[in-house]
């Protein structure tokens, strides 16, 4: 899975958990919470959906790694690779 694929995985999850948001112009280097209406429960949703859909675990200590699309890709791509995806 490429980093762009990984960003799309996260965007697909956000589309489901924040269905009122316009995701057409999300800036990859800007914190998601600074450009979208996302609260702490929504971030737990992202963690839950990564677990449910992709079998990926994100420990609480690493939540900050999900701050932006770029940081998500940095953090998650090796995890997908490790799972053979």
């Amino acid at each position, binding site marked *: 899975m490429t980093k762009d694929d990984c960003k799309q995985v996260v965007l697909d999850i956000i589309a489901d958990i924040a269905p009122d948001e316009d995701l057409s112009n999300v800036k990859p280097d800007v914190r998601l919470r600074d450009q979208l209406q996302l609260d702490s*429960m929504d971030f737990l949703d992202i963690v839950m959906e990564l*677990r449910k859909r992709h079998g990926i675990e994100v420990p609480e200590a690493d939540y900050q790694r999900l701050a932006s699309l770029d940081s998500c890709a940095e953090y998650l791509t090796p995890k997908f690779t490790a799972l053979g995806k």
Partner: protein
Amino acid sequence: MSLSTARIVITGVGLTAPNGDSLAEFRHHLLTGVAGISRMEIRYMGPQLAGVCHYDPLRHQKKKEVRVGTRAGSISIYCAREALADSGLNWEAVAKDRTGIYIGCTEHGNVETENEIYNISKFNYDTKFWSHYHNPRTVANNPAGETSLNLGVTGPCYTIGAACAAGNMGLVHAAQMLRLGEVDLAICGGVSESIHTFGIFAGFKSQNALATHADPAKASRPFDLARNGIVISEGGCLYTLERLDDARRRGAKIYAEIAGWHVNSDASDYVLPNPTRQAECIRAALARSRLAPRDIHLVNTHATATPLGDIQECEAIRAVFGEGCPDTSINNTKSFIGHCMGAAGALELAGNLPSFDDLVVHPTINVDRLDPQCALPGLVLNQPRQVAKVDTILNNSFGMLGINSTLIVRRFVP
């Protein structure tokens, strides 16, 4: 006038019922014989008779609110917003910290808990897949809390658990809080999301109290000799209640005045009604209202179409109203919409409020053969009845564990 004796009036109505999403549509269908029962797929049980509401959740909620919240919360928000719009209140100017939300519920949390158990069953019952939304979804105050979030109400917002007496209880509690001076505006009534939990259906089925019928529209048949149980429905009805002085100051439209109420308990059985206590409840409500039985022009019954329960309520009504009340009509709204559980009392009152204006009593439908034990004088069967006078409505709502509520409203006369 002191607050403790302040006159309390209904100034707005918002509702969703299986046969209507506004008072006008609901009333029209009650007068034209349109029921709202259909078949719905219930988890583990297959198609079951149910009353399903068809309001548009996105009329007053964002998609995310609908996704995160509960059906009961969504119904509450819809009803509250519609009631406020109907009331003519300038919502922007209303003191949110002086507003209370009091919502009656039969139960809350079954739907959400069942959904989570079903969810983790897909993950070998590993609880790490249990939703972090479970607790805010299942706390008992959820429907009122979600409504407070949507409306920005910062006064007291909570639910009142009173089984199927809860709809009346929302109004009763609101009237009490207005008279105590706790709030200046109350948004109150009852809601139910119970059709989304298989447990309610399975429980009534195990109790042999779940209705069956080939024709869904004829399934809910209180007082009919062939009645065979309850049709479970969802729904909601919330009112705006105000002290009369406040309502008049702003020139509000007034639907009715709260005349009186009573709430008591059977203390006799988990599920079986107690007609003696029901009669005591009705009499006490009349006494508080300073009305005699003959002064009541419309009695809306609680009857749910269980073989025994209907007879017992008729026994209670007969004990109070006897044969000497020629101006008293009696009807039942569940014959159209099934049993809306926590919403029942509030919805059934709403369906009858327009009688103050049109002097028509909506009927109890689906009575092909009247059970002789339910043959009350004044029972309005199958067709609406034009009457000479409707100045008072008495609304019964009773619930499991023996909680009884009677609410009386009167035509507003300045």
